[in-house]
């Protein structure tokens, strides 16, 4: 019934502009929809990608490219949203007190601010439903 993606990964690279965020949102939903994730989870991921991208776009240094990496693992989906511009302060000081953080951490099992090739990235992890219920 579910397409077994194994440990497939889907990678996307698009211009870092707000008008392209919906592409990342749609791709995320399309990939998540193929996995044993609930409707709520799929919607949460959509919101989380929206938020993560908005957060990354607001960084100084005018990033040129957005990268999105969706990796399906046996028990979870990992989504990494990243930009290509290295930044001095990442994660930003006091990020735990921001709207962004509050929202992101409520939308996924785990959220981490990371560096990807020296550039800011946000990793979002959503656990899939086990075959025997929740």
């Amino acid at each position: 019934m579910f397409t077994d993606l194994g440990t497939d990964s889907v990678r996307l690279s698009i211009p870092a502009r707000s008008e392209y965020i919906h592409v990342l949102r749609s791709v995320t939903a399309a990939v998540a929809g193929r996995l044993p994730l609930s409707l709520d989870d799929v919607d949460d991921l959509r919101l989380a990608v929206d938020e993560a991208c908005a957060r990354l776009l607001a960084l100084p240094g005018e990033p040129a490219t957005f990268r999105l990496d969706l990796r399906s693992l046996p028990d979870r989906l990992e989504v990494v949203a990243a930009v290509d511009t290295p930044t001095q302060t990442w994660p930003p000081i006091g990020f735990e007190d921001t709207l962004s953080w509050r929202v992101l951490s409520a939308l996924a099992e785990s959220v981490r601010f990371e560096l990807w090739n020296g550039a800011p990235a946000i990793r979002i992890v959503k656990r899939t439903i086990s075959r025997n219920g929740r």
Partner: protein
Amino acid sequence: MTARARVDLQELDERELFGMLPKDTAAREELTRRFLPLAEYLARRFSGRGESQDDLFQVASLGLLNAIDRFDLSRDVQFSTYAAVTIVGELKRHFRDKGWAVRVPRRLQEIGLRINAVLPELSQQLGRSPTIDEIAARCDANAEEILEAMEASHAYATSSLDAPAGEDGAAPIEVLGSDDPSMELLEEWASVAPAVRDLPQRERTVLYLRFFRGLTQSEIAREVGVSQMHVSRILSQTLRELREAVNPGAPVAEPELLEEID
């Protein structure tokens, strides 16, 4: 216009005022003033469709001005009736020009309605929110269509933040327990993002339940008495608005466009 002239005009009835048109701009202003509440009322009836109340009011006001200019006294119709028709026409045209509502393919609208219809029962049977595949099976559609319909519902009917709270039977936030410690957290959060305080009650309630009480979208839908898709729309729209308020210069994600599914 002098204060005296204004008082005099206020004593005239509609027919007399219309008789002074088109020459007398003061009479035109007086008519506008009298019927602006009608424009406002009609604009409010179009809220909840993704347009700000200010924009709708502006469109409705324009409709009113057109109605005043075109009204023909010799016709046997009340101006208020004529104005209402003109204003509603203007509001409808506004939505049509925006390409909303009409551009979502009927097929997707129907699937959207079916999703809303089967979700509560399906969730109850499973004891959790169903997967896309499970919804697809129940709706007699495929997973892609379900995802498209979900997306389309975001694009054309984003709930207005100015929609009167409680319009969908939203539970007042007080009912949820004001001595709840997470309520204090929301207050605290409001100091970081003051716009939270300005949110209409329903939006605040949904935000609070999702991000401070950790309820799922389906649970919120049950609690507040709206569909899951509506909760989803409220969340994405509210977050977008808050983002803008927190960081006015920040780029804001565009609402989903429909081009790719048409």
